[in-house]
Structure formats: structure tokens, C-alpha cells
């Protein structure tokens, strides 16, 4: 008998030792501690959820205004306000893990030792993986971000990988560096289980009439639709440079955007600003992605990975 039903596309995504239901991950900073939006988007229906950046002690964040719309995107300077790792493990994580969601902890610090200590603490916790946010200012280097120096980023990765024990350590790259492929290679060699990119793009919004910066922190980070072409290009360059799986993000709003990141070489994707626009968007994208793949007769996303063709190639 011939099965006339169209094959449902397989969205299962393998990322090193992790197996995700699908390639859609709620990015750090827009999904709270994982349960706030559960009515709109149950965390267990996503490939994974990544919690707000977690530091050793609570951080207060930046003075307001902390966000503003610009150029069809969002510029934010939240300043990594968070409850600190102790409260995260005690209050936030247990109910989130009880939903069976795959949970990543986004890790932030001011010096290498902060990352190492956080990795050690999280190694013994129920989180499924760590994601190092290396866009934080490094106090030992006058506030220059860890990610701006590939060797420093590699040392930071090493400092976290060992104490993290069995937990996969992802490293999340900033977009604006001289050589993103070199940065990707260095952190991959240092033991990153996956490379996620991009973080927000440094930005400044000015009000001409008041002659003032709009954000309390002066500068912020641009996210959303305007950064997608930049994110795709950086994803593509990293995927060319390393074998380590790439988790792409930046301006994903629709299923087609996810497909574009996969074509550029990503294995999975993260969604940030779209969740602020509509908390249901990851589920909408998931449904639309299934429909898209079925319509295009693509049986697995893996077959699209890195399959990008040049404009004039057959």
C-alpha cells in the first residue's frame, strides 16, 4: 500500500550531547526565568529555553529608560539585571525543570573567575547546558568586552568548560569583531560545545530635539529585524570556520527566517525580540516551519544545513 500522507518533517535537533525536540530556542533576556510566559508559550514545547543572564550576585541593571524602538528594531540597555545564581537555583529553576523543558543558563560575569565559579555551581544543578555571554565588560581590562579579544574569549571558555563538568558549554558571540571566524575557531578549540550568535549590535539612539541620548545608559544593543542580514553573514562565516554546531539568531520573526539561518549553516536558532512582539511567536513559527518544510518537500532540516548556494550557482 502506498502511504499518501505527506511525511511530517522531522524537527529533532542534535546539538552535541543534547537532543532537542525542535530547533527553536527562546533566547536569553526575553523569556524571564522560563515560566512567566508559559500561558502563551509552554517552555517544554520549544527545543530549549535560555534564562536571563545569571551572575554570582544579583545585578541591579542600568538606569532607565532601558529600551526604545529604532529603525524597525529594538535598542535595549537593560544592564543584565538578574536575581543572582543562588535565587535562580532555589526559586526559578525547580518549577521550570518540572515542566520537562530543556533549560540553558546564560552566564555573565566581570572576570574569568566569575565564569569559572558559576560553571562550578551550575555543574551540580539541573540546568541542561550553559551559555557564556562573553559580551560583558571585563573589569580587569578596563571594561573592554571579553568577546573583543579572541585569546581572552578562549581563556574564558577554558575557565568555564572544566568546572562545568558534564554540562555542555555554549559560547555566545558578539556581532562586531574584527574576525568572527577567528573568534569562533578559538572558542571552539577551547572546548565550546556550541557557538551561538549574534548578541545585540552596539547602538546609540539620539533625540535631536532634546539633544539627548534616549537610553539612560547612553548606548544599548540593537535587536530584531534590522540585524538579520548581519546575523546571517556572521552565522555563515562561523559555520564555514568550525565543525562545532552553530546556534543562529538575530531578527528571527518567521519560519522563513529560521530556514535562512539553517541554510547559512546553523543547526538550531534562537528567538528574542519576536517574543517581545508576541509571546506566542515561537509556537507560530514552529507550526509555520512544519508547513513550510512539508510544502517544500524537505524531510529534515539537517538536509538544508549549510546548503546555501551562491546567487548564480545552479
Amino acid at each position, binding site marked *: 500500500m502506498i502511504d499518501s500522507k505527506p511525511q511530517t518533517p522531522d524537527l529533532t535537533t542534535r546539538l552535541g550531547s543534547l537532543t532537542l525536540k525542535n530547533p527553536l530556542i527562546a533566547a536569553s533576556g526575553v523569556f524571564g526565568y522560563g515560566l512567566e510566559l508559559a500561558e*502563551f508559550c509552554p517552555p517544554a514545547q520549544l527545543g530549549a529555553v535560555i534564562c536571563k543572564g545569571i551572575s554570582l550576585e544579583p545585578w541591579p*541593571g542600568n538606569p532607565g529608560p532601558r529600551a526604545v524602538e529604532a529603525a524597525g528594531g529594538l535598542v535595549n540597555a537593560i544592564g543584565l539585571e538578574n536575581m543572582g545564581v543562588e535565587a535562580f537555583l532555589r526559586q526559578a529553576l525547580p518549577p521550570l525543570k518540572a515542566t520537562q523543558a530543556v533549560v540553558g543558563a546564560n552566564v555573565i560575569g566581570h572576570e574569568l573567575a566569575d565564569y569559572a565559579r558559576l560553571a562550578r555551581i551550575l555543574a551540580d544543578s539541573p540546568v541542561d547546558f550553559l551559555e557564556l555571554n562573553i559580551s560583558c565588560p571585563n573589569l580587569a581590562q578596563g571594561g573592554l568586552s571579553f568577546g573583543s579579544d579572541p585569546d581572552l574569549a578562549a581563556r574564558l571558555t577554558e575557565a568555564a568548560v572544566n568546572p562545568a563538568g558534564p554540562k555542555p558549554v555554549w559560547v555566545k558571540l558578539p556581532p562586531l569583531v574584527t574576525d568572527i571566524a577567528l573568534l569562533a575557531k578559538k572558542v571552539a578549540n577551547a572546548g565550546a560545545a556550541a557557538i551561538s550568535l549574534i548578541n545585540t549590535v552596539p547602538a546609540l539612539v539620539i533625540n535631536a530635539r532634546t539633544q539627548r541620548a534616549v537610553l539612560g545608559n547612553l548606548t544599548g544593543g540593537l535587536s530584531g529585524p534590522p540585524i538579520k542580514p548581519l546575523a546571517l553573514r556572521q552565522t555563515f562565516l562561523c559555520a564555514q570556520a568550525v565543525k562545532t554546531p552553530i546556534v543562529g539568531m538575530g531578527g528571527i520573526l518567521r519560519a522563513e527566517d529560521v530556514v535562512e539561518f539553517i541554510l547559512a549553516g546553523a543547526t538550531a536558532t534562537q528567538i528574542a525580540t519576536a517574543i517581545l512582539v508576541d509571546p506566542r511567536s515561537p509556537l507560530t513559527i514552529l507550526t509555520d516551519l512544519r508547513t513550510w518544510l512539508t510544502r517544500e518537500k524537505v524531510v529534515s532540516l539537517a538536509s538544508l544545513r549549510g546548503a546555501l548556494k551562491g546567487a548564480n550557482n545552479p
Partner: protein
Amino acid sequence: MTDAPTITQAPVLALTWRGQNLFQLTILAPPGDWGDPGRLAKLRAWGQPPAGQPLLDRPFSVHRYRPGARELDFLIRVVGPGTQALAQLRPGQTLQITGPLGQGLRRLQPDFPQTPLYLVAGGVGLAPQANLLDQLQAPAHLFYGERRGQALIDHDYLAGLAPNFTAISEDGLGYGQKGQVTEPLLAALNQERRAIFACGPPGLLTALAPVARTYKVPYWASVEAFLACGLGVCLSCSRALTDGSRIRLCQDGPVVDGLTLDWGKP
């Protein structure tokens, strides 16, 4: 009554201009406790991005709520693309509404309808005052102030909202006398002390905290911030309290105890 916000397509029932740049939008209310004065909703009357812009929904306080008729009013000042799009709505069309969001006065003052009040509104900060006035059974006086050159609201509409009110504008060109809204408020406080409920620009709300302290009266303020999500996840609306702890205005506000918010830390 349910408290969890929903995302709904709601029919527009009416759009009525209440000033040159100010309109009242009436929609069929989705389920929810909209009567808690100060609560808000996010509205969207344009498509989804990237084509549909602006990117984010826009937040507005509930202006009036008629639970019997399930009618919900917003009082909206046109300032940019989002409010312009909302101003184009016609009866029969629908908009997307997310809410009810946040906490109004009820949590801080459960018996607010029996509380004698001075209501202080700066400009479109008038919006949530009507939701409160509609429920008040105690004496109330509204102090309504407009900025220089604003001339925001139709006189008759304002007069219809509050039985007792004083209107004042910085340049005397708007409605009422010339001056700052704090001047008639101070005169009233010297006559009789009452709790203050205020909504308006940050300068006004900040200035009222020492006034409330001096006169030893409770002070509740509906505070604005840029709300990127309105649902408690992004922390764009986070503010410090005087004890150093932090709140999210979209969850723990927008109505806050004006004596415990740290006005010095924006």
C-alpha cells in the same frame, strides 16, 4: 474574575475625538478585571513585523470600563506612528489587545471607592483617573494640568468626567487658569488633607512625593516606562524602591506607592 492576560482580537465600537489630538477609543472588552484603576492593555492596530510597523504593541491605561455593556474605553493622545494607526480605526474593525496588565490601585488601597481623594492628572495622565472616578463613592477633586501650548482636551468632556475639578495650564492658553497643577493642590491640602492619586509626566509625579510627605497623606502614582513586553520578562520597566529592592512596573505597577518608589533612580 480572571486575572491572567489574554491576547484577543476585539471589535472597535466607537472612536470619538475629545480634543485636537486626543481621542476616545471604545472596544468590546475581552474577559478580565478591567475595573482596577490604573490597569493597562497593549494595543496593536497594524500588521505583524517586519512589514507591520511599529514593531511593538503600544501600552495604554484603561480610561473607563462599563462591565454591563462590556465596553472598554481608552483615551489616547496622538504622538507617533502607533497612536496614529489607532486613530484610523473605525467601528466594525478589530484590533489586537493584550491584557489586562499590571496592578491598579486596588492592591494598595482595597477600599479605594470609599477613600476621599485628590486626583492629579498631567495631560493624558487623565486617562486612568476616569476609571477611578467612575467607582468613587467618597469626595474627590480632580486637578488637571496641561503643559505649555498643549491645549489637549475639550472642556465639556473634562467637565463630564469629574463633578469637582480644577483645570490649569502652564501658559494659561489651555483650559482653565494659568500655573502649575501643584499650586491648587497645595491650597486644597492646606484646607483638608486627603490621599493623592496621580498620573502624568515624571517631573510631576516626582514633585508630588515630597508634597505627600509634608502633608503626611498617602500617595499613589501611576508611573510610565517604556514597556517592551508588558508581560514581566524583559525588565525594561524595572524601577528601584527606597529599600533597594526592584519592581517591574508592568507587573507590580503601573500604580505604585509613591512614598516607597525611589524617584531619584529612573
